[in-house]
Structures are given as C-alpha cells and as structure tokens.
C-alpha cells in the first residue's frame, strides 16, 4: 500500500504533570499512519518524546495504553506481562485503531519487568 493510501488513526497523547518534559500536563492529538510508529509521528509533529534504541528493546519510550490497539510486532524485547499491564513501546508501536496513551512510563514498566523477573528491571531494581 502506498504511503498516502495508508489508513490513519487518531492518537491522543497525555503527558503527565510529573513528566520531565516541557509539555508536562498537556494533551496532544496526532493523525498517525498505520505504517508509522507513534514516536516517529509525535517527533515529526514537534512533540519530542523520550526514546533511545528505537528498536523496541530499552523501554525508554514506554507508554501506558489507555484505549485502543497497537501493533507491537517489531519490538525486539516485549513480554506478555508488559501487554497485560497495559504498556507499549512507542518507538515500534503502530496504531491499529484510534487510541489514547500516557507517555513517560519507563520507570513504571521497569518495575513491571522487575516484578516479573525480566530484564532490565530484574537487574536494575531487584
């Protein structure tokens, strides 16, 4: 499918008050193509969300999915327990519906990993 024919979804991003981002406390709404990652779309739109590896591994970009669906198949390290706890990695997450998420959740996902004896949480927190 050509890029301009790709389906688009509305992605609502909440930046928590406590986030160390200049946009703390703000809400953003983006139109994201189904073949585009949420991180890439946000940065292209001027919202500089935190990220590092951009391969779905390091969890720097973790967000909590409040509503909707994403495709996480490109993640290099993503566990069923991450999904069960409601976390996604925006660097590889592609929208599959309109959705809403809360960004700046790397510490929270790190704790989930530690609670489930998974890396890197188990090595950093346990």
């Amino acid at each position: 499918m050509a890029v301009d024919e790709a389906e688009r979804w509305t992605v609502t991003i909440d930046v928590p008050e406590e986030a160390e981002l200049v946009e703390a406390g703000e809400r953003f709404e983006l139109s994201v193509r189904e073949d585009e990652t949420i991180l890439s779309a946000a940065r292209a739109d001027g919202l500089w969300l935190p990220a590092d590896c951009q391969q779905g591994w390091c969890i720097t970009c973790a967000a909590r999915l409040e509503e909707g669906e994403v495709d996480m198949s490109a993640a290099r390290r993503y566990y069923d327990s991450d999904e069960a706890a409601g976390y996604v990695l925006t660097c590889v997450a592609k929208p599959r519906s309109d959705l809403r998420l809360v960004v700046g959740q790397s510490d929270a996902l790190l704790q989930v990993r530690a609670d489930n004896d998974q890396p890197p949480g188990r090595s950093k927190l346990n």
Partner: protein
Amino acid sequence: MSEDKPHTSGQVDPGDTSKRVGAETLRERGLDPEELREKLIDAISAEFIGTYYYYTDLRMHLAGHEDYKEITEDARLEDRAHFELLVPRVYELGGKLPGDIRDFADRSSCPEATLPDDPSAENILEVLLEAERCAIRTWTEICDMTHGKDPRTYDMAQRVLQEEIEHEAWFIELLSMERDGEVRPAGHFIRGEPGDAPYSTNRRINDSA
C-alpha cells in the same frame, strides 16, 4: 570567600571523600549524575556485550567474505574501545560494573547482535547495520543529556558517536552492494590498524588499557 574563588563553592566540605566535586558540579547544573552513570552502564553494556561479544561470532560466520570480515573486525574492536573509554567514567560518577555479567547483559541499551538463523552475509550485514544504528541513537541521547553540563562525558560520548556513525556508513555500503547490487560509498579510508578507534581509543591516555 566564594566571591573571590567561585569554584570553591558547593556542597562538598574540605577533606570529604564521600562526595565528588566532579559529580556535584553536574548536579548543580541540572544533570543527575546517578541517572547519567546508570545510562552509561546500559550503553557500555551494549558496546561490550551487545556488539563486541556478538560481533565476534558474526565475524566468524562471514566465511568467504574477507573484506566484510576486516570491516567487522574494525567495528568489533572499536566497540570494545568504547567500553574501555567509558568504564572509568562510570566509576568517577560513583558507579560500578554489575558484579554478575548476566546482570550487565540484561541492561544493554541495545539488542544483542545475535547470529541470524540464516547466517548469510546479507543477513549478518543487516544485523551489524541495525546494531550500529542503535548505538548512534544511544550516544546521541547521551550527548544531548550532557551537552553544556558535563564536558567530560560529552567529549567521550561524541568521540564514540563519531565512530558509530562511520560504522553505519561502512555497513550501509556493504549491505547495499551485497543485497541490492547498489553502490552507496561510505567515503572513508581504511584504519591505520585493525580497530584503530581514531576518536575513542584510550590507549593514548593509558597504554595498559
């Protein structure tokens, strides 16, 4: 007194060895030295385990491609040089290497560059390329984090970043030709010796390293 000697100000009492001015000056400038050192541990894990260790295996499987092996050898040794360059900084900032290498591996900020199920030259080159791309992102983040606040870490990180960018160019050139038959020159001359690490080696600082 502090007006006469502004750099004697701060939170470290004379003779106090429990704190480091080299770390407290970062905190005074808004950079959390503990957060930085933990990020450095993750990053050097990626260099030592994520790439140096796994590149050794990848290189061994490039049989029949001596040119690819030479380039991979440069990248492999330079990634080890990156580890060597930054380890002292972790300790300077009050940190240490994990006691268990498995904990160290867990923390890698990049995926391990493991041998693909089909170890063709094309597939191996793609693994090498994506590993370098991850490293570029990591060291760019560290440059962003330290710029204007921590000149020592920034200097180290930008040296590593320069070589990671060169590595990406090497593997783009090789993969483009191997997979697509296309010429995308890296535009670089050969290293003076394998793994020369012209920007990042700490050999000139310490011959024993």
